[in-house]
Each structure stands twice: as structure tokens, then as C-alpha cells.
């Protein structure tokens, strides 16, 4: 309940405040979004599995975003930034899909 509320408040705040993202951070925004979605779906699945843990959720979210950004930053410095961000998106995308599948199994038993 509190999670849904927090998410809603966060989205509304983001839409209304429209915080400006500094230019040097803009390249990492898409990666951060994918990492955040991965964390959200992971948390939702854990909740349905009955093993949800607040700390793990927050730490995994922050760590995911940071590691994804770090990989892309490293790639940018080495000249393979776009390839590495593709890799990050693919890996996190697969995780999102399989977590979504697990959630679906929980909800619909199918």
C-alpha cells in the first residue's frame, strides 16, 4: 500500500516539478529507467513469492542504477558506450520479462 502510494507521489512530483536533468547525466537516464523497472518488477515478484524485503528492494534498485550507469560510463570512456548500454538493456530486459512471467503465473495461475 505504502509502496503504491510512494510510487504515485513520485510520479506526480516528477511530472509537476519537471526537474531538469544536467546534460552529462542525460545519457544515463534511459539506463537508469530500465534498471529501475527491473527493480520494480523484481520487488513485485518477491512480494508475490512472499519473500519481499524493503532493504533488499531499495539496495537492489540503487545498486542496479549505479552499476548500469557505471558500465555505460566506462563504455563511453572506451568508445563502446552504445554497445554496452545495449548489453545492459538486453540483460535487464530479459530479467524484466522473466519476472513479469513469474508475476503472471502468480496472478493467473497460467
Amino acid at each position, binding site marked *: 500500500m505504502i509502496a503504491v502510494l510512494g*510510487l504515485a507521489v513520485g510520479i*506526480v512530483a*516528477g511530472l509537476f516539478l519537471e*526537474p531538469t536533468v544536467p546534460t552529462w547525466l542525460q545519457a544515463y537516464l534511459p539506463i537508469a529507467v530500465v534498471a529501475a523497472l527491473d527493480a520494480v518488477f523484481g520487488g513485485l515478484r518477491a512480494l508475490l513469492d512472499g*519473500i519481499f524485503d524493503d532493504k*533488499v*528492494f531499495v539496495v537492489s534498485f540503487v545498486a542496479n542504477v549505479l552499476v548500469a550507469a557505471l558500465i555505460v560510463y566506462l563504455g563511453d570512456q572506451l568508445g563502446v558506450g552504445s554497445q554496452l548500454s545495449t548489453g545492459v538493456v538486453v540483460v535487464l530486459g530479459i530479467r524484466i520479462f522473466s519476472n513479469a512471467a513469474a508475476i503472471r503465473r502468480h496472478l493467473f495461475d497460467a
Partner: protein
Amino acid sequence: MSLLTDLMAHSLDAGYAEAHARRRPGEEQHRRGRPRLLLLVGVLAVGLLLATSAAQTRNRASAVAQERDAIAGEIAGRAAQNDRLATALERERARLNTSRRDALRLSDEGQRLTRTLTTLEAATGATAVRGPALVVQLDDARSADAPGADVDPRSGQVAYGRVTDRDLQTVVNQLWEAGAEAVAVNGQRLTALSAIRSAGDAVLVDFRPLSPPYEVVAVGDAPHVRTAFAEGFGGSYLQALRDYGISYSITTRDSVRLAASAGATLRYASAPSGTESGS
């Protein structure tokens, strides 16, 4: 392969299971209080991130659209200004011509010069001309499923039967050859120095982009030009274009006025100053 299998099988963060196992003995008691706040902060951050990203994307899209509108507006403004200047130029030229003619009328020599000048001006496109004309109209193929339809592998755009600069060049050259005395494409008068080129998808005549349908007007002995054009290479070329879905029509008009070319300017030569001119 094992990496992918691992990814699929253990999509859930292992931390959840571990934390769950650790908590078992201590029961659900400590789940009130501080960790809840942590969750709220985390979820708030997620929401903020998603919304910021969405807002960012929307802002960027609208900024791009605004920029494009501004540039398009500037182009339209400049084009209108060019047209105004061209009209003014033509008016001044006409005034110059009348005063020159008045001055030359005073002598026999002058009258002969006037006749030569008039002929030359008409031939070079320096003045407007009027006369019977042959009109060749060309238009792009109607739809994407025209016989010549082809998908550009890079842009994914369907390049259906478009009229290209080559087509217009051929038609114009064949009209000259058929005996046309003055030619204009979509109102742009052609001279010996005119260029028909293309930039991207647009056909440019004297660096002015034209849009289809293209109307090539050739002033001359219309029936004769028509026969010569249809019997020559021009006629068969248009027939070939029809295979690509390009439609064309050839008509004659009794009287057409073609404006003077706007491009008749000196590029390198300039009039010498004052005293030298007589020598």
C-alpha cells in the same frame, strides 16, 4: 548458453531469498518502522526517475518541433522577401528597357540596335516573352504500389515513381532541340546558365526547390515543336517514364507569358568606372 540459462532461471535477485532465510527465526516483528521509511524513499525515487524521464522526453520532442517550426517560418519569410525583391527587380528592368528604347529611338542605328537587343533579350531569358506554347506536365506516381515502387533500405521510405532532375533535364533539352524558343519549369524561366539539379527529394531549378506536378512550358511554334518533340527522344523518354507510374500530359496553349529569368546577373565582370569606359 549457461549465462542465458542462468539469467532466465534466476531472474529474481538472490538477495530476497537470503533476506527471507535470515529473517525466519526473528519473525516478522522488525518490519515496522525504519525499513518502511526506506521503502517509501526507494519507491519515491523510482517514481521520480520514471516521471522525470517521461517529462524529459516530452520536453525534448516539443523543443525539436518548435525549432523546426521556427526554421520553416524563417524559410517562408526569406522566400517571400526574395519574391518581393525579384518583382522589384523586374519592374526596374522594365523601366530601364523603356528608357533605353526611348533613347535609342532617336536614330536609325539605335532602332536597329533595339531590334537586335529585343531578340537577344528574349533568347537569353533576360525579358519576359509571350507566345504560343507547348506544355508538358509531369507528376510523380500516385501511390506506393506503382510499378516503380522501391523501398529505400536505409530510410525505409518508399521511393515510388518520382520525377527526378534527370527527367526534367531530358524533357527540357528535347524541347530546346524540338525548336522551343523559351522554356520555363514551374514558372522558373530557363537560360543558357540555368541548372536543373536535385537536393534530397526535391528538384531544384536555379537553386529553387520545385514541387510536383512539374509544368514545362516551351514557347515556340507549338504544333511543330509538339511533333518534333513527340517523334524525337523526348516522346519515347516520356513513354518509358510511364512504366514507372509517372503520369504526363502534353497540351498546346495559344498564348503564354513567361517571366524573365531572375538569374541574369553578372558574376565576375563589372562596369569600369567613369573615364575608362570610352577607350
